[in-house]
């Protein structure tokens, strides 16, 4: 796994996700200015057979990217800001296309699920900050929201490893030397 830094910021990789996970945080870029921090997240998303089968059977999947801006404290980090981006991926049987809508309520259509996932696997968020801080870090996690599944599916999803698509939390510290 490659951990790349922006040309102005240096981001150190601590945890780049588990190798066997279906959802993996691939890379995080951060651009820090005096007012905000813009975070670009790239993930590697792959569905399991069960989830793909569910998708083809009309079960919409909610993919949630959780991104948190943490500030390192004396003993442990404190979550300063937190946001999430939700993508709703479903299959349109009449058109045979995969549809993705997100928080922005824009519907995107794709011929294949891989195209749809390729659309989902990168996102960017902006955190408003009052000043530059050297002790900031970005934590990223991506998962399928099991609570959004139809009720009968939830117990199965709860106990089945095929549905355990959540990535681990990845910490990406931001080097203070970075300047805009």
């Amino acid at each position, binding site marked *: 796994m490659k951990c790349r830094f922006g040309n102005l910021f240096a981001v150190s990789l601590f945890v780049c996700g588990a190798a066997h996970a279906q959802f993996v945080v691939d890379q995080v870029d951060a651009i820090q200015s005096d007012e905000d921090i813009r975070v670009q997240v790239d993930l590697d998303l792959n569905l399991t057979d069960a989830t793909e089968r569910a998708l083809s059977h009309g079960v919409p999947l909610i993919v949630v990217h959780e991104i948190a801006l943490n500030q390192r404290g004396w003993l442990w980090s404190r979550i300063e800001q937190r946001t999430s981006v939700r993508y709703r991926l479903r299959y349109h049987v009449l*058109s045979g*296309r995969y549809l993705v809508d997100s928080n922005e309520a824009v519907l995107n259509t794709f*011929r294949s699920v891989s195209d749809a996932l390729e659309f989902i696997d990168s996102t960017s968020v902006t955190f408003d900050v009052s000043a530059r801080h050297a002790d900031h870090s970005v934590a990223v996690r991506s998962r399928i929201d099991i609570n959004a599944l139809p009720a009968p599916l939830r117990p199965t999803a709860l106990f089945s490893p095929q549905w355990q698509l959540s990535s681990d939390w990845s910490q990406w510290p931001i080097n203070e030397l970075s300047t805009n």
Partner: protein
Amino acid sequence: MANQRIIDKLIGPIPALILSLVVVASLLMLIAAAQDVDASVESYLVLLGLNVLGIFVLLALIGGNLWRLRRQWRGKVLGSRLTLRMIGLFVLLVLIPLSVVYYVSTQFLSKGIDSWFDVRVDRAVNDALLLGKTSLETIKRDAVDDLSGAASRLIGVENELSLITLLDEVREDGDLAELLLLSHDGRIIASSQKVAGKLIPDRPNERVLSEVRGGGRYVNLEPLAGGVQQLRIAVPVLGTGISRPSRILHGLKLVPLRYSRLAESIENASARYRQMVFSRRPLKFSLILTLTVVTLAASMLAVWAAIYVSRRMLSPLRDLAEGTRAVAAGDYRKKLPVPSSDELGVLVESFNNMTRQIHRAQTSVKQHQQETERQRTYLEAILAHLSSGVLSFDYKNRLLTYNAAVTQILDYDFKLLRKQTAEEISGSVPKFEPLFRGIRDSIERDEAEWNAEVTIFADRGRQVLIVRGTRISSIKNSGSGYVVVFDDVTELIQAQRDAAWREVARRLAHEIKNPLTPIQLSAERIRAKYLNGVAPEDRDALDRATRTIAQQVESMKVMVNAFSNYAQPSEQKFESLALNQLIRDVAELFVSEAQPSLIHFDLEPGLPSITADPGRLRQVLNNLILNAKDATSDVEKPEIKIRTRYIEENKHCYVELTISDNGYGFTEEDQSRLFEPYVTTKDEKGTGLGLAVVKRIVEEHGGLVWLDSAVQAGGAVATITLPVGESAVNTDLKLRRAQQRFLSESTG
């Protein structure tokens, strides 16, 4: 003990009840969560975990209860078997219906869910979908045909204004939302848009373009937000030469709203149905999991309730069983707690009343027993210290009890004769045959009271017993029995006889001795006065008569003096005496030249001195040696042996003197009467008072004297025992007092 109490509280009813309520509540919530669309999976997980935990806790409770029951069953605690049996019954009664319900429910669920997916419904949905697709395909085909027609109109048109005008015309004719003419490499040549002001046209992606470049036609339905659907169409516009290559006409056409809504409806219904089909197994799994957890929790609750109810129900019975066992073991003070006012409570109360009454009765019986025992002990103490022998016989004529005096009087251990009949005792011990024959005869005659005098010849010689028998009723509740009391009156009779003889002797001495002197004096006066005056022929007769009178009177005086000595108590002067020396002094008088070896001495050297009256003891020795000498007068080799021994027996010290001879001895019949006055074996020679005087003197010295036949020599053996030291006088006094007490008891 404290730990056990804590465990009992933990597995008691209140924690279990609280747990049951929690489990039931969580079960209800779990069922609700399984059906609630909005319920989060975390809450479902928590509820599921809570229920599983509750089941495990219930299992632990049940296990604890069963373990305790198993321990009680192994320890054979009363009621444990019944409790186990009842629990088993309850568990069966609960589990069998629950299992049936569970099986039926799972089948019902499975079949019910399966029934949702009827083949006809499935086909209808697919048909609707197919219909929708077909309709859309028609729309798509029409749209692509229309656009292909428009593309043919654009062939050769190069002028930009003409192109725009034509594109607008085509867009309006085809009711397109947007129309683009793209170069072969995808560059926009001209565009026409329905919505004015849209700055960036919706350019097709490279995949669309490459498909069209290959000569194909592209059309696809693209859902938009808000249920609106649009068709993306791309067709080639053929070029007219190398300098005018082919171009691409790309259009976007909104599906008519009516079709869009219908298609959306079909899409939604189809999606929902496919979701249901896909969720069939998970739904079954979810519902059966919930049902299983509910059934398990209900089963555990029911089993625990069965255990609790069984224990609770059987608790009074267990208490009753323990109480019964305690009563059987003799504990009548056991009180059982009354559990309730129902039938069991009445039963326990009755049990308590019963034990209370038994306890009272037992206490009363014990008091009576103690009283009886006290009286028996008192009676035994009296009997033990009674000088009379007491025998008791049961109704079968068997010897039941005897007191110490029996053993003492008869000198026989009656322990071996217990439970034997009087007849059997007669056969076992022939010397007591006269006594027990009399007893047997009296018992057989069933006399209420009877008296008899029985003479037996036992080890002590002739014994005269006065026997009294009394019939008593209810000895050990087994009919009549007999109590026989007897006294040994041998010595009493002897003492009475001695006393009588002494009285006779005293009277004889007194009545006869007084006239003897006047008779003698009168005879001498007659002789002196008339001997010379009578005729010579009568003188000789007178002389013989008066001489005879004088001689007989003298002889009578000697006899009367002997009586007097026997009858009158003499003054005794006790002093320390060397018996061996006294024996030698007395025996010396009987040794003569004619018989130098008549007497043989076997005197123990160093014999301790005794306290005795030398004069009286000399008379004893004199009488005995004289008797022996007289008894051996006709023997060819007369022999008298005198022997002394010092003996210690039972802390008593005494000397034993034995004088034996080889004379004519005495018969067995004479043996018991030889010490009586006027009993003699010497024909006319003796007065018959010698041995009587010997016996009296020896008894005055606290000693004993008896005669035996010499087994080997064939003569008689006289044996005297005399106490050693100062105790002799005291012993004599004690003996006298004992004799007096005995006489008074016997006569009283």
